């Protein structure tokens, strides 16, 4: 077997592995971050609209986590959303509020997280893993919005 073949094969294998690595690192960054290094928070909404598992959680547009589970509470039939928050963002206050927002007019829905203040004197601490976020705003459902608009128009 000639040296030339061996060199080419080595080059080919290196190129293939490089392709894998660069796909994993450059194209799909979030997947690796969202692996084990996250903690869970829970939140109860009245209506989650078009929110889905794997929708992003953003603070000021920065993705800080993803939704890992959506289910209904057995007692009051309200949706409970499990939020996977990346480990490095572990200083959110208990006064944090969540709202379901839409990217653009027709875009995907995501959870906007509004960090509150931490105030030891008022007894507002830091959210611990598996805590519930109390302050939540439901999704805006376009049909309801239009309904309200028409209703208020007719009242005028």
């Amino acid at each position: 077997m000639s040296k030339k073949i061996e060199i080419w094969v080595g080059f080919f294998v290196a190129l293939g592995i490089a392709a894998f690595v660069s796909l994993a690192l450059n194209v799909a960054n979030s997947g690796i971050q969202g692996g084990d290094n996250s903690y869970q928070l829970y939140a109860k909404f009245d209506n989650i609209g078009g929110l889905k598992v794997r929708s992003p959680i953003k603070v000021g547009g920065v993705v800080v986590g993803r939704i890992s589970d959506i289910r209904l509470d057995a007692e009051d039939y309200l949706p409970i959303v499990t939020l996977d928050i990346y480990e490095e963002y572990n200083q959110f206050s208990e006064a944090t509020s969540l709202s379901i927002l839409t990217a653009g007019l027709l875009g995907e829905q995501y959870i906007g997280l509004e960090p509150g203040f931490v105030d030891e004197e008022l007894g507002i601490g830091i959210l611990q893993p598996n805590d519930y976020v109390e302050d939540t705003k439901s999704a805006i459902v376009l049909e309801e919005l239009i309904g309200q608009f028409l209703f208020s128009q007719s009242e005028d």
Partner: protein
Amino acid sequence: MIKRFGQLGHTTLELLAGLGRALIILLSAITHMPNIRKGYPLFVKQVYSVGVLSLIIIIVSGLFIGMVLALQGHGVLIDYGAEASLGPMVALSLLRELGPVVTALLFAGRAGSALTAEIGLMKATEQLSSMEMMAVDPLRRVIAPRFWAGLFCMPLLAAIFSMVGIFGSHLVGVVWLGVDQGTFWSVMQGDVDFADIVNGTIKAVSFAFVVTWIAVFKGYDCVPTSEGISRATTSSVVQASLVVLGLDFILTAIMFT
């Protein structure tokens, strides 16, 4: 009427017999994984002819398909003001579907047909027979290294295809059409999951498996005449392509629903 049944039975039996022979070849190829001392050089040589020689067609096709995807996607997305989603659209199309599928189709045409023709010709010129008479098992010496090389090379080629395709879409989307570079990459990273790469790779490995299996089987099982070889080569490419497309649907249905 009875004649019809006879024909049906004959066809069924022939199909089953073919499947059985294919399974035997597959089994012995799998159990004869190349060993270090004798198998390694054979394997490397096949990686060269199956993988390295397919690089050009894979890179060129990947580049153009990525560029066309970006061009078409941009045209549609810009109507909704959503050209920021160009990155994930291209990346997901490539990683989940086009990378493995187009690579498998090109691989069947480029490497699969060559494997079938080569093995068929070895059979027609009695090289396989003479190997057997020299107490060397052609399944181990000829079929196994080719099978493993195909299984090894195609996923690498698919990864290269996807990477080059994304690079091509970057060329068109960012450099030519002016999508913001930061948006392009960050939105892509936000929407593409590691699971997409894993699923794409699972697809690529499955396709590599069937394409190489069909190619070596068709060569080994061909009628050892010029007509037989040409027919085996054609049916190797056609069947491999159809099986890849069908399997793709099944895998997609399992993975993404």
